[in-house]
């Protein structure tokens, strides 16, 4: 089962990631916009899986329904996602980037966070979440 479902999922997730980054780069590099401030969002993309991964590694009891560390990690991850949507809007309101660039960057956001979520749904729900699977 792992062989039949993992490889097409991996390919489609990597395609999704590429499309998301394409939208981000379009929002920066198109000649009509030509402002590279939205590249700060890469910082948020890299930061977003970290709290949840730390909580999965630190706390091992996956069978209890309530788990304060995991909930704190979900809270922080939601904060990072909200910040990744808020930053381009603030850039556009302050006229640092154009609203068209903002729209492209927000679309890229949606695709990339969907990809990261899909990554965790497909590859994360194992009983022993370990990096040795790679």
């Amino acid at each position: 089962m792992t062989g039949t479902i993992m490889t097409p999922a991996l390919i489609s997730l990597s395609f999704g990631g590429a499309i998301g980054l394409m939208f981000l780069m379009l929002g920066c590099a198109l000649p009509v916009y030509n402002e590279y401030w939205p590249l700060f969002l890469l910082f948020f993309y890299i930061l977003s899986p970290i709290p949840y991964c730390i909580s999965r590694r630190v706390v091992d009891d996956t069978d209890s329904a309530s788990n304060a560390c995991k909930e704190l990690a979900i809270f922080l991850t939601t904060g990072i996602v909200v910040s990744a949507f808020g930053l381009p809007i603030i850039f556009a309101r302050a006229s640092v980037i154009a609203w068209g660039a903002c729209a492209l960057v927000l679309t890229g956001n949606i695709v990339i966070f969907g990809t990261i979520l899909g990554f965790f749904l497909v590859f994360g729900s194992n009983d022993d979440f370990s990096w040795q699977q790679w």
Partner: protein
Amino acid sequence: MSGFLDGIRCGDCECNVDWGEKRNTIASIAAGVLFFTGWWIIIDAAIMYPREDQFHHAYHTCGVIATIAFLMINAVSNGQVRGDSYSEGCMGQTGARVWLFIGFMLAFGSLIASMWILFGGFVVASKETVYPGIAVFFQNAFIFFGGLVFKFGRTEDLWQ
């Protein structure tokens, strides 16, 4: 190539999601959205109105105190306040209650202060742009409700 669409099934999602055990996750996500939206509202107001006479910089204190209150309220679990957790913690059950009391006092205080700032500092004073006052009010309201959702939206029952 033939039959490559045979594997796709529509409406076959085994959505037997137990919403009861997802309650904590949904509460955490809602609290995160509320809390951070509040902060981004004030960041937006600070960027759009940078001058001291448009948006007096001391009004940021309200949101900072609200954030401290959020952290204080959520630092103690309901079990420690009820007294039925295994370890007593630093200060025991009474200490946990005092901590929670002070946390809620700061939370309510910052919410009331934000309303005072909006009406006293912007509406009555007839500033030409009221938006910074509205932003302070909404920041504190969102942080307050985010704190409430994070505190009371999650359940600590380990066996449901």
